[in-house]
């Protein structure tokens, strides 16, 4: 009954919102049946009959004033209840855990306080969580039906939202603000949402900007937080990935691939093919050999030395990448020789 029309109630907001939903629902049913029932009864009762004329319309001022003014009370009540729920959703508790959300066409990136990232939203149960949203391109909107929350991610702004999950499990997260579609199709890879399929390829766009929310117990959540700073576990073997493999994963996950190629072609930044051990020339006239220390410095303080022929546009990854992650990337770059 509770969830006849609504998704399961998995956040502290759900009950309040649903109460109002069903209040309006039953109010509407009563009003609809009442008004339309009366109207249809009149249609039948006063159907045209030979020799019977319509009665002239009179005035019923009291009736008119009643039905103009009395709904006001009801409307004020509805506004009040909606407002209460809304204010609860607006003001996050001070001890809420922070997660940073970056939206872009057509994926979500969630960043946790320890600097780890994921594409699925992981949250602990029974603990308020505050999301700070931003967008890199167009407007998106983060929508979790089971929590009854939604907030736009607007480029050029930060927006915030919060919730407290009440149930361990997994539920859907959607993009609710239209954000276009990619041209053509791409390959299906593991973990892609089950939408937009055409044979063994898939269409990508607003409708596929879907992921999951995973709600853990606090203990499991801490394990999760640890895990995103360690090499991912290969489900087939049950073993952690090698540093080289992890480096390759980070190359994509941290978007180094948007500026660096691994096939020898120059993009915004120099290619990584054959980089390790090569002699580098810098814009300030100095030079150095690309060893592990140099690469580490290039990642953490990219503008201390700018390679000749390029601009100093690389963002610093200090604070984002941990030592073991930097090591993994270096290991990966070494494999490209």
């Amino acid at each position, binding site marked *: 009954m509770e969830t006849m029309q609504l998704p399961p109630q998995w956040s502290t907001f759900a009950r309040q919102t649903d109460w109002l939903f069903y209040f309006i629902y039953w109010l509407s049913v009563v009003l609809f049946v009442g008004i339309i029932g009366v109207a249809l009864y009149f249609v039948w009762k006063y159907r045209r009959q030979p020799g019977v004329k319509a009665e002239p319309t009179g005035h019923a001022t009291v009736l008119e004033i009643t039905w103009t003014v009395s709904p006001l009370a009801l409307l004020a009540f509805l506004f009040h209840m909606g407002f209460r*729920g809304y204010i609860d959703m607006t003001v996050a508790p001070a001890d809420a855990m922070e997660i940073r959300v970056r939206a872009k066409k057509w994926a979500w990136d969630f960043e946790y306080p320890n600097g780890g990232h994921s594409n699925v939203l992981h949250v602990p149960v029974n603990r308020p969580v505050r999301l700070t949203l931003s967008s890199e391109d167009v407007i998106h909107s983060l929508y979790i039906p089971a929590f009854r929350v939604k907030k736009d991610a607007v480029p050029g702004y930060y927006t915030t939202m919060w919730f407290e999950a009440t149930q361990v499990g997994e539920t859907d997260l959607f993009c609710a603000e239209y954000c276009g579609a990619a041209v053509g199709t791409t390959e299906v890879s593991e973990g892609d949402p089950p939408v937009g399929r055409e044979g063994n390829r898939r269409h990508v766009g607003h409708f596929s900007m879907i992921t999951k929310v995973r709600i853990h117990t606090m203990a499991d959540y801490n394990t999760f937080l640890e895990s995103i700073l360690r090499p991912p576990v290969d489900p087939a073997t049950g073993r952690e990935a090698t540093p080289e493999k992890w480096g390759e994963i980070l190359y994509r996950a941290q978007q180094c691939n948007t500026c660096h190629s691994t096939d020898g072609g120059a993009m915004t930044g120099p290619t990584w093919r054959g980089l390790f051990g090569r002699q580098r020339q810098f814009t300030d006239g100095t030079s150095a050999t690309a060893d592990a220390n140099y690469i580490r410095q290039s990642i953490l303080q990219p503008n201390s030395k700018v390679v000749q022929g390029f601009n100093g546009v690389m963002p610093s990854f200090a604070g984002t990448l941990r030592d073991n992650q930097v090591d993994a990337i270096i290991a990966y770059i070494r494999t490209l020789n």
Partner: protein
Amino acid sequence: MATEVAGAHGHDEPDHLAPYLSPEAGRGIKGWLLTLDHKRIGLMYLVSTLLAFFMGGVFALLVRLELFAPGRTIMSAEYYNRAFTLHGAIMVFLFIIPAVPGALGNFVLPIMLGTKDVAFPRLNLLSFYVYLFGATFALYSIISGSVDTGWTFYTPYSTTSNTSVVSMVLGAFILGFSSILTGLNFIVTIHKLRAPGLHWKRLPLFVWGTYATSIIQVLATPVLAITLLLLAAERTFGLGIFDPALGGDPILFQHFFWFYSHPAVYIMIVPGMAVASELFATFSRRAIFGYFAIAMSSLGLALVGFLVWGHHMYTSGQSEFATTLFAALTMLVAIPSGVKVFNWTATLYKGSIVLTTPMLYALSFLILFTIGGLTGLFVGALSVDIHLHDTYFVVAHFHYVMMGGTVMAFVGGILYWWPKMTGKLYDESLAKKGWFFVFVGFNTTFLIQFIMGSKGMPRRYYDYLPQFETYHKISTVGSWLLLVGFLLTAWALIKSIRSGEKSPPNPWGSAGFEWQGTESPPVMQNFRVTPTITRGPYDYHLCSDEELFDGFPEDAEK
């Protein structure tokens, strides 16, 4: 009546007392294209808006067909986005905004006022050509790459989309001028050209509704025009107004857009209410209950409609204070809408009701608009709207209002005034079958969308998760029933033109001025002598039996 043979007139000089459709009233294609006659302009609007409805309908059917099965069904995601955008844009800008005022308003309003024409007949013709000009831009956009922004053109999506946004936006910009010209013309006509004896308290409710609509058109449309122009300028010259990458503010666009588009919702629905009032009166043979309240509630809607645009932006990140204020004001909109529903219901009480097809459409209007209005309470309540915003619940809500409301009233109005416009009767039983499919098809298509939306199905999705499949299937089947319904109705009209019986001047036995004072179809100048109005348009108790039953086929037999 119409047997008087038109007397001496020059070769090209139209005969002002000939039926307006006859060759004597203006010959050939030129007689139509250069006509200043409000009735002919009305018919040209009717044909063009129905074509637009057909085109928008084709896109709707394609959208629904794509959603019939999961995964790709008939088109790619890119084309789906174009299809729903064109559906929305055509239905809003080319169909529903101009339909009732342009087609029915142009035809009926001057006759109801007892005048020969609108105040500025040339401006009237101009507004039609401006409409066609704007439509050309829209069509050009469709063939030159089309648009995929949604009819809302939200920035920065619309400033970065590589589709043909500028021509569509210019099209909507130009169409806005057509809307303004029509509105202005009607306001002046209503103020200045009422027949002797037709004081404000005797104005038919259709005129009141059109008056309220015209005011909104004149006041709100310029804001849309400026917004769209800024958008086009931003795309063309890279001005940084809305795009944050250029230092602009994307939320500003939403404020501008909805400052027009919420009032525009009333440009769409108030004319529908206006038509429905006429239908209820005629087919109950009774004055509308609470005439004054209905008239004033239209003006009330026009006014309050300007103060609630922010209710489209609860999740956008606008300030909490603004959100609260808009939510409170939004609740007020329910009052005038409720008053109207109560009054229409009370009109039926002790009437003499006959279920002709137009009346069936009027009752459908009452039922569906009530659902549309009640579901407005859900999205008006702040916390509930956070959940429902941008889901199919909203899609269902606005279709109940726009299609269940305005389109039902529009079709009812076309059938109702058809004998006056064409001088022919249509086949009632065929039209009734059409109505049946439209009514059942509409509810099959859209009722289920409320459920799917409250369960969390977002709108503008090319595909869906498995739990939504059944709902989408049912909805798509409903769209086919709708198609059958509209095809039957169209056939009834075509058949009437080709072989319909000749209509008497007042086939419904209505007390309305447009039925009492003119022939079917009216002569070019509407009236042979300028009428003097001595009673109200709903004063059935003052009408003689002959006036009411004149030529009403069924009653004549009794």
